[in-house]
């Protein structure tokens, strides 16, 4: 193997080289900017992480997520293969290309374009096993990539094949990058095939070279094909920052930062920026988003929010306000972008020092009857007294003494304020409630509202006090034998409230209770995939009709197996469903109270 071109240069390398230089500069500047945006503390975290053993985990995560796309494999094999074949295949082509340069033309190491156009610049002098092995590997990975590209092209026209109902709409940058990407590998195949007679090749390139030789031996075709190959590469590289493929380099950054323990603290800090650019616009969140049940609302999903954020368009605010914060898109996102957090941060930035003050807080007393169990209904349960009345029946039957913290009116738990972006005011409420809870001397704080539950669990500093949702608590009472249920002939389906299921990981306890109460039927989308009821306080601007549409869609998935009754464990879900559901709707406490022995 030796060089066949003097000076190892041909003008066709220029488009690629320019593109490569551009993208290297772009990524360097971008990377520098992101790091510059990090706080000193965050930079320190990043540094510490980089020089710790944990970095190996990060490297593995990068390989697993960015090259092998294991998460997507788990979701859908074909979709996973499509991503992995292109990413990993391409990576191997680059990697082996560099090895070839290192072995055969070490003097050209470091020449940017050389590994890419290696087969143009060299000629085969004699056959070796080693050479054939590398040629084989190169052809093999090219074939793998081509198969992935094939699926990708097919997916563009029929997305159902990879298990997606809807995909994103492309923008100009995306289109240039996409079509370039489609063309890169077929053109590489042709380019390498055309020169296979000179440079040598393997099963793929040699065969095509032979086939073409039979009708076109004209070597003047070689130049145009290599030009085309370089041009498409250049086009791809230039379009990259303006396309969704920017996610490829950014995601590496994101994994690195995330594993360092860095999180977004504003809608546009370094971490947020890398999350925004890590979105691959795969569109999985479109199917995940409850708002997208109305097809014109697809544009409100996270992928489009991130896209608006990239373009720094003010409409992103409307998107941030609409989001229900159900977390379904976060749950399903292959890149694990916490778009809900980004949207809350966006809302936070709209609140200023002039926020509304809660002057009365200092006047409200924090005394409550002392008892081991303290029950807090919260604002929403006050609108659904049937829930706490049922719960009180259960507690009385169990012989548990409790006190009712907000009997005469609630200081809100603070979560609705946090969701609206007013974290500062939320903290005031949290502190007030915290004092009351601590003053009560309770060991257990019992809640019937998952919205409250999540915030009490995550934001309240309550040492020695167990925060428990009534589903957990009732299940415990049943298991301890303090109460028992008559099993009825009724069949139930359980709706996982977002903040209880996805938000707090409570999936089993309500189901265990219901299995004791009757027959539990499954819903097609449940547990982590449960649909939002539509009532979520997370959304600030969604109107009544849009919410009703979401509620209906959720009901449709819940009633697929035709249960007698819908059971949930959240006052807001209960209220959302009750008026629209044609069948009975109940809170789990009601079921237990009714069927208690």
């Amino acid at each position, binding site marked *: 193997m030796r060089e066949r071109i003097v000076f190892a240069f041909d003008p066709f390398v220029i488009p690629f080289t320019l593109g490569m230089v551009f993208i290297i500069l772009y990524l360097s500047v971008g990377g520098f900017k992101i790091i510059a945006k990090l706080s000193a503390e965050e930079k320190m975290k990043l540094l510490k992480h980089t020089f710790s053993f944990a970095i190996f985990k990060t490297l593995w995560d990068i390989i697993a997520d960015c090259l092998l796309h294991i998460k997507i494999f788990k979701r859908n094999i074909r979709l996973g293969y499509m991503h992995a074949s292109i990413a990993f295949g391409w990576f191997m082509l680059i990697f082996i290309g560099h090895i070839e340069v290192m072995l055969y033309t070490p003097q050209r190491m470091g020449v940017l374009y050389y590994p890419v156009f290696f087969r143009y610049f060299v000629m085969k002098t004699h056959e070796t096993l080693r050479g054939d092995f590398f040629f084989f590997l190169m052809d093999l990975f090219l074939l793998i990539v081509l198969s992935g590209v094939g699926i990708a092209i097919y997916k563009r026209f029929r997305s159902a094949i990879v298990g997606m109902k809807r995909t994103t709409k492309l923008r100009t940058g995306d289109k240039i990058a996409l079509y370039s990407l489609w063309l890169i590998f077929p053109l590489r195949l042709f380019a390498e095939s055309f020169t296979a007679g000179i440079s040598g090749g393997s099963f793929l390139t040699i065969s095509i070279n032979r086939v073409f030789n039979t009708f076109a031996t004209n070597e003047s075709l070689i130049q145009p094909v290599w030009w085309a190959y370089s041009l498409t590469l250049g086009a791809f590289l230039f379009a990259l920052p303006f396309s969704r493929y920017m996610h490829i380099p950014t995601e590496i950054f994101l994994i690195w930062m995330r594993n360092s323990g860095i999180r977004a603290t504003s809608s546009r800090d370094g971490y947020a920026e890398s999350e925004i650019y890590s979105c691959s616009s795969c569109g999985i969140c479109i199917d995940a988003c409850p708002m997208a049940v109305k097809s014109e609302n697809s544009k409100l999903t996270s992928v489009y929010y991130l896209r608006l954020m990239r373009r720094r368009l003010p409409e992103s605010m409307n998107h941030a306000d609409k989001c229900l914060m159900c977390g379904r898109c976060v749950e399903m996102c292959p890149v694990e972008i916490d778009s809900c957090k980004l949207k809350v941060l966006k809302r936070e930035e709209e609140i200023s020092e002039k926020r509304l003050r809660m002057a009365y807080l200092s006047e409200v007393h924090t005394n409550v009857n002392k008892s081991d169990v303290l029950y807090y209904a919260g604002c929403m349960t006050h*609108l659904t007294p049937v829930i706490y009345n049922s719960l009180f029946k259960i507690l009385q039957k169990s012989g548990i003494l409790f006190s009712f913290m907000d009997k005469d009116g609630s200081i809100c738990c603070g979560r609705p304020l946090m969701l609206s972006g*007013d974290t500062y005011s939320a903290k005031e409420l949290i502190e007030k409630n915290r004092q009351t809870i601590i003053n009560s001397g309770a060991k257990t704080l019992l809640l019937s509202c998952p919205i409250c539950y999540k915030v009490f669990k995550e934001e309240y500093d309550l040492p020695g006090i167990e925060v428990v949702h009534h589903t957990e608590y009732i299940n415990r009472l049943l298991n301890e034998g303090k109460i028992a249920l008559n099993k009825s002939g009724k069949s139930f389906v359980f709706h996982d409230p977002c903040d209880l299921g996805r938000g707090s990981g409570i999936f089993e306890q309500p189901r265990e209770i219901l299995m004791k109460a009757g027959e539990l039927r499954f819903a097609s989308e449940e547990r982590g995939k449960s649909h939002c009821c539509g009532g979520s306080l997370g959304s600030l601007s969604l*109107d009544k009709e849009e919410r009703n549409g979401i509620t209906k869609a959720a009901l449709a998935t819940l009633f697929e197996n035709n249960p007698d009754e819908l059971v949930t464990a959240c006052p807001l879900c209960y209220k959302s469903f009750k008026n629209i559901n044609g069948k009975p709707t109940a809170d789990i406490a009601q079921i237990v109270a009714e069927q208690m022995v």
Partner: protein
Amino acid sequence: MNRFGYRLSPSSQIDLDVSDNSLFRQILAGEPGISTCISCGSCVASCSAGVFDKISFRKALHLLEAGMDTEAVALLEGCMMCGKCTLVCPRGINTRHAIVLIKRKLNKG
């Protein structure tokens, strides 16, 4: 200068010829539902914070429409954003969104 010991008393009159309700109109653009308020008072009756303070979304909306922004906002001080008012509103007005928008405009103004 006031050597009389009294002066013109400020008028509490809503003068629609000169009142500027641009804030109201901005909120209306963001939350068109507020035009359908029938002043039933459900929002006030259900208000969690209303137990502790003088909070009235209904009246705030009225004052805002009359261009009395400062007085209106004073009636929203202390809102805990719990959203009960939105749930009870018979006209289905997203009251919570309107309050969020008012808070934000305050910020900008």
